């Protein structure tokens, strides 16, 4: 391979935007620390529209040109320097995360107001700083062009996410946070071992360079396995999901929404980067089936346990365990047996669309559950009667989120599952189609369980503990609608997820 060391990479026209996407949140965190707790919400208010704008401009650029944006940091080209790259996958995920973060920010104004409070407290300050830090770390994960930068981003994400779990400082949330941290640390150190092995074998960690040099040998396989297992622990894929339900269900509503919608997608995205971009030909047929089997087990286990829950927030948390399973079904479905590679076709689009629709729907559902909890003072599913009359907008948002999770048309979840089902039929892997259909049934089951109780009219008018502000309900509804409409993105004339991916295909055909 004559071109193994020369990289066609150079900073492209919109490359500076990629730097902005990372630098804006980081600067805001530093500013918040310098200016103190009173200013932090104001800083977040300024940052959010800017960050959202940057994400949309990057998305529009990638969509229009169909090419990826690149920024070479300090003009030092890889392998010596570091490249930031935005392809279709990163652009679409960046926009989704930006929308979710902004909606969570609007929602959290009521619970974590730093301006009106008489005494400066720690929880609101920590919440806003960590929310911004998570955003920055996620953007870094989407844009990072080499595996070590991605390791650092992954750690930043963990350090920002763990404090959100134990914002209220109760013993059980502290325990959940500690368990989460230990799982996450195990995951990241396994990832780091893999990075060391890959560098030792190929002398580079840049993803594009690596994809050209990589070949099947014991060191590659060991590294890939270690990294994948580590990332599974962070993504809470069955059977490494034990930390997720207590951590996500115990956190305050706004924090649960971020944790469930955003944070697990970070490590999932790295699994995709690793297998589809860095080593598309390494995952054998058996490996793909194994990942798919774990995903299928997650779907069945998560759904069954969700059906047995008595508390709404725990039900939603177990539903996350199940929905994460769908994300990993795309690995066997994208596996092309002829060329023995992962192909960036319909299955990849379906998997990423599932990630996007789950992010928006799950955030909406956690917000709705938080509002129901605030209004009733509890979230026992059996005693939800009358809540649909008291908070119609909230219950509607919850139901719309459920529509996307079940995969009813025209939601993003429908299109995602349809694309995955189509891939299952085309590749003749009917067993994954069975799992997906069963998962849809289970999901309808637990959504029905909640909604049937919520829609029962109360005998006497409910006495709400607090008045739930309208804008909080609107934030949840906006996200639920976004999830419903996210399918339209893939119906457009250009499949944005495939933008900037020709090289992976080219390497694949060699």
């Amino acid at each position, binding site marked *: 391979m004559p071109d193994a060391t020369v990289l066609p990479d150079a900073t492209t026209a919109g490359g500076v935007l990629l730097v902005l996407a990372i630098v804006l949140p980081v600067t805001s965190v530093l500013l918040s620390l310098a200016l103190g707790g009173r200013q932090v919400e104001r800083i977040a208010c300024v940052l959010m529209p800017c960050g959202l704008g940057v994400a949309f401009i990057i998305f529009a650029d990638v969509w229009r040109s169909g090419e990826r944006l690149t920024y070479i940091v300090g003009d030092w080209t890889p392998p*010596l320097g570091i490249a930031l790259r935005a392809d279709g996958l990163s652009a679409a995920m960046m926009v989704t995360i930006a929308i979710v973060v902004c909606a969570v920010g609007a929602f959290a104004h009521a619970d974590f107001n730093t301006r009106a409070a008489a005494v400066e407290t720690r929880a609101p300050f920590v919440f806003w700083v960590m929310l911004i830090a998570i955003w920055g770390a996620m953007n870094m994960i989407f844009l990072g062009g080499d595996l*070590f930068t991605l*390791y*650092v981003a992954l*750690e930043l994400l*963990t*350090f920002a996410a*763990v404090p959100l779990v*134990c914002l209220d*400082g*109760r*013993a*059980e949330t*502290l*325990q*959940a*946070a*500690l*368990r989460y*941290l*230990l799982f996450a*640390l*195990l995951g*990241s*150190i396994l990832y*780091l*071992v893999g*990075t*060391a*092995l890959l*560098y*030792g074998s190929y*002398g580079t960690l840049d993803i594009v360079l690596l994809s050209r040099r990589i070949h099947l040998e014991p060191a590659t396989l060991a590294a890939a396995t270690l990294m994948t297992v580590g990332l599974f622990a962070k993504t809470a894929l069955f059977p490494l999901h*034990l930390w997720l*339900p*207590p951590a996500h*269900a*115990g956190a305050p509503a706004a924090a649960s929404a971020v944790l469930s919608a955003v944070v697990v997608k970070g490590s999932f995205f790295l699994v995709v980067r690793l297998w589809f971009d860095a080593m598309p030909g390494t995952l054998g047929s058996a490996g793909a089936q194994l990942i798919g089997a774990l995903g299928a087990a997650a779907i069945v286990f998560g759904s069954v*346990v969700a059906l*047995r*829950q*008595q*508390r709404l927030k*725990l039900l939603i*948390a*177990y539903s996350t365990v199940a929905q994460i399973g769908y994300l990993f079904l795309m690995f066997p479905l994208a596996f092309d047996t002829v060329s023995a590679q992962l192909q960036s076709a319909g299955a990849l689009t379906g998997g990423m669309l599932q990630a996007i629709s789950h992010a928006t729907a799950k955030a909406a559902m956690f917000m709705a559950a938080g509002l129901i909890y605030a209004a009733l003072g509890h979230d026992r599913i059996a005693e939800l009667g009358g809540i649909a009359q008291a908070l119609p907008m909230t219950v509607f948002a919850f139901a719309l989120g459920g529509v996307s999770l079940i995969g009813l048309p025209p939601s993003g979840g429908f299109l995602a599952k349809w694309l995955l089902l189509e891939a299952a039929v085309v590749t003749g892997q009917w067993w994954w189609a069975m799992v997906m259909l069963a998962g849809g049934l289970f999901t309808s089951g637990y959504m029905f369980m909640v909604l049937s109780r919520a829609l029962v009219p109360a005998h006497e008018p409910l006495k709400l503990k607090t008045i739930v502000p309208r804008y909080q309900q609107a934030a949840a509804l906006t996200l639920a609608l976004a999830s419903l409409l996210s399918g339209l993105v893939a119906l457009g004339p250009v499949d944005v997820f495939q933008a900037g991916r020709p090289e992976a295909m080219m390497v694949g055909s060699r």
Partner: protein
Amino acid sequence: MNAATLFGLCGAALVGFGLYGLVTNPEPLRKVLAFNLLGSGVFLVFGAISKRAAAAGLGGDPVPQAMVITAIVVAFAATAMAIALVLRLLEETGRATLSSDGPGGTSTDGGNS
């Protein structure tokens, strides 16, 4: 066996010990210590790789060395955070365990049994 191989093997052994400790020890503090042992093993492997891939005229490949410094800082921060959580848990409950039969731990079990 040259020095780089020896150090690499030592690193691998440390990774093994650390992993075993992290998985089998029930106590959070011991888990944190095991994580540090595991981390030291990884740093040693990075050192061995740096030495093995040394370019002509250099004592070692500087890139893994730069990575190790970053990774040490990250591991340090992670340890500090874990210890802070353990201490806070001890303050709240009087004991620092992860088992859910502890005070307040039962409600987070979530029907998982």
